[in-house]
């Protein structure tokens, strides 16, 4: 095990007020602000733009014990061409699967530009020895993953062993090589927004390329207040250091309206330059069809039956 520093970077006492403070989060005010942003009325052109952006930033996901190469390939097809009847609908950003399904997905995606993301590190619980989790990452990378979505050790975090959490992320980042690393905090298990903020800053300090809310396996997952909390931490890092770390909302985003609300959050917290697949992702599965349905409605004026949207 690599030598963890006595205190992870970012947890040092700020000698000047300007360093990103770990700080506190007021839950009532945070939720109120998220609620206000959720009220934004996004219509017509602005709505179409947002729906297309939501597709372009979707990591289309299947993470089931029952996944087979056939299933994974079907999802990959869907991600590559979400709406066969409308070639102007863009591809998704990535497909997210368990490591065993990487080859099937790679084959189906070909050179489409859609990325292969794999969960690793004993997803979703992360309750395994570090060496096993790092080996999991290495093998996923060897199988061809472009992106790795890891989970933090919540047991260690909640028992105050922050150095261990930090150290693991550092090792995983190393094992990723060229693959980009998303760090899943599993915010639903962290209990408080203060913890969400701390975990976000910890993950960023340890080298995350993206911070991600959830595994999608438990509730609550990517609520608007949690997303806002994490985006504010991402903003603080950017303001202090110039480093842009991406954000992925995953879990519980099922309706296009929610997707748009999430985009509004990014837009009004970080700014329009952050509305790109390089810095923003939505982890979802059933969301895509709702977006396509809304898009069709904006373009034709009517809602179509669900039968017109493929279930892959």
């Amino acid at each position, binding site marked *: 095990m690599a030598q963890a520093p006595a205190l992870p970077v970012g947890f040092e006492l700020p000698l000047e007020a300007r360093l990103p403070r770990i700080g506190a989060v007021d839950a009532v005010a945070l939720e109120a602000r998220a609620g206000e942003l959720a009220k934004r009325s996004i219509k017509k052109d602005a709505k179409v733009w947002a729906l*297309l952006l939501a597709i372009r930033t979707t990591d289309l996901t299947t993470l089931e014990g029952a996944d087979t190469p056939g299933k994974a390939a079907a999802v990959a097809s869907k991600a590559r061409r979400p709406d066969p009847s409308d070639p102007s609908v863009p591809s998704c950003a990535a497909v997210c699967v368990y490591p065993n399904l990487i080859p099937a997905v790679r084959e189906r995606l070909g050179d489409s530009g859609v990325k292969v993301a794999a969960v690793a590190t004993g997803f979703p619980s992360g309750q395994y020895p570090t060496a096993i989790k790092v080996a999991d990452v290495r093998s996923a990378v060897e199988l061809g993953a472009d992106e790795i979505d890891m989970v933090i050790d919540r047991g260690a975090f909640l028992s105050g062993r922050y150095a261990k959490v930090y150290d693991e992320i550092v090792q995983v980042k190393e094992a990723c090589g060229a693959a980009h690393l998303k760090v899943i905090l599993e915010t639903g298990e962290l209990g408080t927004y203060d913890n969400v903020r701390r975990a976000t800053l910890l993950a960023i300090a340890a080298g995350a390329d993206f911070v991600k809310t959830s595994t999608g396996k438990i509730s609550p997952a990517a609520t608007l207040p949690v997303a806002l909390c994490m985006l504010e931490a991402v903003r603080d890092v950017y303001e202090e250091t110039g480093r842009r770390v991406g954000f992925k909302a995953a879990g519980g985003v099922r309706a296009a309206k929610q997707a748009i609300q999430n985009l509004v959050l990014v837009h009004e917290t970080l700014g329009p330059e952050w509305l790109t697949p390089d810095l923003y992702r939505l982890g979802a599965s059933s969301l895509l069809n709702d977006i396509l349905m809304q898009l069709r409605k904006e373009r034709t004026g009517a809602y179509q039956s669900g039968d017109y949207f493929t279930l892959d």
Partner: protein
Amino acid sequence: MAELETQQGGLAVPDGWTYAPAPESTDIVRIAERYGHYVGGEWLEASEIYETIAPRDESPLATIGQATKADVENAVAAARNAYADGWSSLPGSERAKYLFRIARILQERAREFAVLESLNGGKPIKESRDVDVPLAAAHFFYYAGWADKLEYAFPNRRPRPVGVAGQIIPWNFPLLMLAWKVAPALACGNTVVLKPAETTPLTALLFCDVLRQAELPPGVVNIVTGDGRTGAALVESEGVDKIAFTGSTEVGKAIQRQLAGSGKKLTLELGGKAANIVFDDCALDQAVEGIVNGIYFNQGHVCCAGSRLFVQESIYEPLVEKLKRRLTTLRVGDPLDKNTDVGAINSAMQLEKIKELVASGEEEGAEIYQPPCVLPEKGYWFAPTVFTNVAQSYRIAQEEIFGPVLSVLTFRTPDEAVEKANNTPYGLSAGVWTEKGSRILWMAQRLRAGVVWANTYNRFDPTSPFGGYKESGFGREGGRHGLEPYLRFDD
């Protein structure tokens, strides 16, 4: 702006993501061409008139009556008759039914009232829809509940109504201030003559239709419109037993002088220059939200607005940076657009006052910041403004601006914060931002303000008594305390 990469049909948005206009339709509300005065359950023709406009574009909305002394006396007489005729002796549970009915009808017609409020007053539709109208209905529901429990509210004191209440309300929360006044007055068995503010009569006049729908006995609530002269006539009227006034400290003092020795009861809810105090251990981003809400909510046309920001010096730079950045995401525009955050200034006169004080701030040496925003050509508009390098003695730190203008000062210790916060003739409200619970309690005890908000701002509830210390007035509205001004006791 960075060009967004496109993949198979993605759109590039050259100026970032512009939200399309999302106007709330005004079709739902029907404004009459001309209004008179609502006296004794009837509409009486007004002999003198004036026009009310929409501050977003100065377009005329309706012709309004300018009540003369005779009109006022007429209304007071109607209130007097209704009082003697049975309202005062009606059982509380019966009065409660009327109040519940009014509350319900307000809720049913909520959208109509919200649209009209924003149109006539200038505040964003999302505020009138989500704050003003729901709170107004809530006040009627709340005081309906007290109407038959006055003996329990004041045990062994034999509470009885006062008589006829003359009520004068301001233009910043027209419908809500009407609810704050009328609901407790009626619950306690009084009858009312109310004068809405000159620039914002329309929701009060629409409210008369609610009274008709609720079949409130004629004369229990009477509404006369007009400017300060009408208010003065109401204050002077011999037939009025109690005056409730919300407005400027200057006028409040004049009223108090006038009523001295008259035996009339008086409550005043006047101006403020609230200190919003941010400690270095606050939840920073949320504190910024609270600061913004404290001064830009309702364009700063709020008596309890957090217009003096006291930042602990140790956190000054990051906080002010975040604050300025946050201002750039405030959307100033058409009050009827659902995405508008900051609406129009209520009147030309108020706009002039704001401009004058802002100019004084610059002249006295404070540093001004305003985010870039495109203000419409017609109508009354002012960009959200922050002044830094403000000294306690500057006019912008002393006088109530009643606009979207924040003055930022610093402090070092809690003691200093308390001293500076209290160093004002006003004493209506204050805000404290800290994660330390013991400090919240410590500050609340020492701040000389009728309302202290901790880690929040501008939170109102009918159960919570609202009112000031010192020159912010006396008497409380809301809660059990809000009943007292409308009752006489045997003791």
